[in-house]
């Protein structure tokens, strides 16, 4: 008995130790940041960044308040994400259920796919101009849509043959098979694609805004390079992007948990 | 040999939260015995085996092998799970050598034993294949071969044939008896299938519903090879069935 008690006690203290380690490591990150700012005086430290944040709220860059920059980025991601989901899932479904269509169009898709979304920036700017949101939306859309197409078609092709066979025996027609069996069974794969797409989307957003925008978080980051290396501004941008992107991921995870409740369940 | 039991289990108890899965189980097993554990579905047999393999710690009680607390690092324990558990990145031959290599056995002995085992399970021609190229039953035979190769002090088998076709199953049951006799190992074999238990075992340990206790240990004196339609066989099967019947 004594031995077992010690055992559980050991486990408790181990758990405790892990949390302490995690806290230490986070403190270390901030410590390192601070140390780096001391070592290189051009680099803003945590406190400088906090001060810069207050000044930024009080004196917006070129009259655009901070929240407007954040909203500009969030709006772009939202619009592009919704569009990319609609287009990506439809195209993925088409590739998945029409093998001949895939045979013909997949090579074209494969030719375009390896071009990074960011490499589209110059040509898109040439096409639709640098002003307005369209160019940025297109870039972000390209960033998100590829992963969704690929995952959707893979999910559909991986539908368990047995389930499809059972569906046919239960009397389903082709349309019912698609709606009731193929699509729901591909949902986890589609969500995985959305998550990958979303992180590529944020990356594309920052690049697109750095290169060709007048507002948005990427624009802030780019401004930090111009104004005599205002690194505090960059840190603010980094933190904002990270927060927004993490929030979107959390939201998507929550939706996934709701929708795919069944796929995570275990026997009672 | 009979003077000292090979394995002694004393008061083995396991409690998960409020649920007592195993309640003061005690028994002894002699060296070279083939013991089958049967019990009703959901009676915690797998927890029991995991305890014996030291995969989980008991809430109370002791497991002794050769009068010492069981320790996978010191004793030769092997485990065969219900699902085939070959290492997909190793060939058939390397899979069979895996446990022996962990034990840092002599290289010559390893090669020689691997050849013996491959011969006994009839997979000599497939030695260079990866598990993905084998059928499920062949894969399970590799696992069983791997476990016998170290000539274990204690071999634990958790329903290794549950997923097999009945015909394959008869064949594999004879094979496991052959391996057991040739290596002199001590085997603990869990099954739901009472006929299988009677066919294989020298002793049948009958377990109760949760909280699990040992209801009775029944000696099975029938000579090998056994015949499932032999009246004595049927009688034994009937009496064990009566003890655990829940359906």
């Amino acid at each position, binding site marked *: 008995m004594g031995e077992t008690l010690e055992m559980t006690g050991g486990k408790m203290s*181990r758990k405790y130790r*892990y949390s302490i*380690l995690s806290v*230490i*490591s986070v403190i270390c*990150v901030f410590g390192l940041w601070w140390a780096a700012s001391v070592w290189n005086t051009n680099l803003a430290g945590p406190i400088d960044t906090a001060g810069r944040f207050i000044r930024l709220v009080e004196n917006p860059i070129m009259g655009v308040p901070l929240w407007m920059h954040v909203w500009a980025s969030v709006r772009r991601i939202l619009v592009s994400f919704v569009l990319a989901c609609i287009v990506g899932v439809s195209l993925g479904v088409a590739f998945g*259920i029409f*093998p*001949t269509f*895939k045979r*013909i169009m*997949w090579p*074209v898709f494969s*030719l375009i*796919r390896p*071009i*990074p979304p*960011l*490499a589209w*920036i*110059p*040509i898109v700017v*040439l*096409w639709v101009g640098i002003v307005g949101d369209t160019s940025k939306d297109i870039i972000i859309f390209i960033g998100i849509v590829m992963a969704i197409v690929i995952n959707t078609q893979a999910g559909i*092709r991986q*539908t368990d043959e047995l389930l499809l066979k059972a569906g046919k025996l239960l009397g389903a027609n082709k349309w019912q098979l698609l709606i009731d069996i*193929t699509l729901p069974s591909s949902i986890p794969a589609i969500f995985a694609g959305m998550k990958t797409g979303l*992180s590529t989307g944020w*990356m594309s957003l*920052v*690049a697109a805004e*750095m290169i060709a925008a007048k507002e948005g978080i990427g624009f802030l*980051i*780019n401004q930090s*390079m111009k104004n005599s*290396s*205002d*690194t505090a*501004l*960059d*840190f603010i941008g*980094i933190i904002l*992007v990270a927060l927004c*992107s993490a929030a979107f991921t959390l939201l998507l995870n929550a939706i996934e948990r709701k929708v795919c409740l069944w796929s995570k369940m275990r026997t009672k | 040999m009979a003077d000292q039991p090979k394995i002694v289990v004393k008061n083995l108890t396991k409690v998960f939260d409020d649920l007592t899965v195993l309640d003061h189980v005690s028994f002894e097993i002699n060296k070279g015995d083939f013991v089958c554990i049967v019990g009703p579905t959901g009676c915690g047999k797998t927890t029991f085996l995991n305890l014996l*393999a*030291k*995969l989980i710690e008991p809430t109370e009680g002791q497991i002794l092998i050769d009068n010492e607390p069981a320790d996978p*690092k010191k004793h*030769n324990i*092997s485990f065969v*799970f219900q699902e085939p*558990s070959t*290492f*997909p*990145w*190793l060939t058939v031959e390397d899979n069979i050598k*895996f*446990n022996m290599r*962990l*034990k840092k056995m002599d290289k010559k002995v390893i090669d020689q034993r691997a050849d013996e085992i491959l011969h006994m399970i009839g997979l000599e021609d497939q030695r260079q294949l990866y598990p993905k190229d084998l059928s499920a039953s062949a894969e399970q035979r590799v696992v069983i071969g791997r476990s016998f190769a170290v000539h274990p002090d204690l071999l634990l088998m958790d329903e290794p044939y549950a997923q097999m076709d009945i015909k394959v199953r008869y064949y594999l049951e004879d094979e496991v008896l052959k391996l057991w006799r040739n290596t002199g190992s001590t085997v603990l074999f869990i099954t739901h299938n009472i006929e299988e238990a009677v066919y294989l075992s020298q002793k049948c340990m009958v377990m109760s519903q949760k909280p699990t206790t040992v209801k009775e240990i029944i000696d099975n004196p029938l000579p090998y090879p056994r015949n499932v339609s032999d009246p004595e066989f049927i009688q034994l099967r009937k009496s064990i069935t009566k003890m655990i019947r829940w359906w």
Partner: protein
Amino acid sequence: MYQEKERPLWQNVLLSCSGILVFLAIWQCVVSFGIVSTDKLVAPYTLCMTFIDKLNNVVPDGNTILVHIATSLKLVLAGFALSCVIGVPLGVCMGFFKTFKALFSPIFEIVKPIPPLAWIPIVIVVFGIGMKSELFIIFVAAFVPCVINSYTGIQSTDPALLNVAKTAGASRWQMFFKVGVPSALPMVFVGIKVSFGSAWATLVAAEMIASSVGLGYMIQQGRQASRPDIVLLGMLVIGIIGGVLTGLLGLLETKVIPWERH
């Protein structure tokens, strides 16, 4: 159900080619018939001509295309290799050893959602404009998927396999090297492929923002000189190189992991 009909090989090849050919034909027509102006899009034929021209011509971006390609390749391979060497061990250790995870995963969680390009202004202050900065950015970009996949790979090791080793008396280290690492390898490779893609994409953008040579710089200059042929050529070359290198990694994968069902 959604399996393709059995067809002779030649029909399959024909169908696949027809897709590409129709695509190219439409592209050529759109330009030739003046539906889209040549300020915005050039025909595939013109693109070929530009490529040949660009082998010797340094206008408008100061270097021939081969120099751009070589510079970009060198950078991406260096950054990618560095991130694999550091990221894979870190990922598998984080997935297997709890202490390691407790120590590094908070840092990693903080870094993960930051788009690599956002580091550029800071990196320039620290390292100045040039190779070192770009290397750092590429490293960060490739590092994250490397770690994530190695981590997930070793975490999803079949517990039965770990138990087999454990009951056979394996030490913690033996379980790590003999069971965990090999079983994580397929996922590690997935990570390596993703991280190459990420490195390549980031490199292009980094070159657009802060460089004076490389394919990304070339297309950015092409845009500023209003030369859609240069831009498209650059995109195409970027796509082809990325595709080919990913394919090579896939080939390497089948060699390194012969036990997987490919």
